[in-house]
């Protein structure tokens, strides 16, 4: 018994007894399908295919260029608008801070009032017929505060008195008779 157990198995017999792989029901149709697929006619390219592709290729750079120019112009314009907008708001904000309301200017700010006060040195220049020199710039008005600080608060009357001089500076000349009166 022991010898029979140790006997090596007969390979040929085992191989013969292997179960056969069952064929699927639609095996034949599966093969046919694949055959049909491989036998499908080849679709030929039209004669103009290559030229059409090359035409598309050559037309691309021009389109891209156009697009890029448009993009550059639009982006540059928007950037400038943005900068202009920021500058406008910034300048208007600072001017509001630097120059209060007119009513406040007249009665509360001695600095601004002093701008309208005629000073002695300005008169000779008017006589010489060069009114433009007498136009007070913001820079020249910056010198005023020291004298203005000691001056009393101006009244509406004062401001009315000083009005002709301002008009004269705008108009350029003051009639001689008026100057003599002064």
């Amino acid at each position, binding site marked *: 018994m022991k010898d029979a157990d140790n006997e090596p198995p007969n390979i040929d017999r085992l191989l013969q007894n292997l179960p056969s792989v069952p064929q699927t029901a*639609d095996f034949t*149709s*599966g093969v*046919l*399908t*694949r055959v*049909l*697929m*491989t036998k*499908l*006619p*080849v*679709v*030929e*390219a*039209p004669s103009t*295919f*290559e*030229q*059409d*592709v*090359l035409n*598309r*290729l050559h037309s*691309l750079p021009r389109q891209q260029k156009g697009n890029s120019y448009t993009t550059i112009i639009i982006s540059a314009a928007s950037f400038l608008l943005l900068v202009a907008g920021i500058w406008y708001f910034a300048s208007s904000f600072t001017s509001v801070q630097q120059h209060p309301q007119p009513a406040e200017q007249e009665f509360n700010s001695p600095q601004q009032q002093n701008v309208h006060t005629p000073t002695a040195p300005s008169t000779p220049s008017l006589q010489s017929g060069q009114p433009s020199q007498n136009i007070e710039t913001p820079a020249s008005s910056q010198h005023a505060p020291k004298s203005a600080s000691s001056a009393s608060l101006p009244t509406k009357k004062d401001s009315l008195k000083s009005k002709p001089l301002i008009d004269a500076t705008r108009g350029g000349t003051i009639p001689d008779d008026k100057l003599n009166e002064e």
Partner: protein
Amino acid sequence: MTSLREEEQVESVSQYDDARLIKLVQQGREDAFVVLMRRYKEPIINFAYRFLGNHDDAIDVAQETFVRLFRYAGTYMGEVKFSTWLYTIASNLAKTELAKYWRKNSVAFSRLSKDDEGAAEWDVADESYLPDATVDASIIAQKVQAALMRISPSYREVVVLRDIQQLSYEEIAEITQIEIGTVKSRINRGRAQLQEQLKEVYEEMFPS
């Protein structure tokens, strides 16, 4: 590329392999591009046609594929075969085209399915969109193409790449960006659907 000199240039590089040609294309060489186009135009047109089922759309997709090949040649790093890369471009363009077609016709299909119970198959395929008549007179070819258009696009793509274009599973996996196992199962399911669709054709070909 119409002059004799340009044609001679094309001829001089026509024996180069794909890898060498694409390097020349990356340097802006149009002659190398023309050689690649001549080499692959028919496989790409065939793939697009079998996937889309419309000759004009297939030509358009194939042309766009080559335009993109030239424009984006610089992005090809050589990690996959050139043909695989080219098929990937074509496959993406063909899917986009199909999506456009579906969007355009979805209203008409939904109207049909309301009235007709048997119109469900129109969700997948539109008979007017099946076009072998314009390309080949073979009735069987038309029926096979019609059957292809009735199976799901995800199955159709892999079946066309495998059984018509004869690409390997690995290449198909690269092109479709899916696992090889999924590729195989999709091919099997696609073939099974195709068999079902082509029963009539078998009976005509081999009457029992």
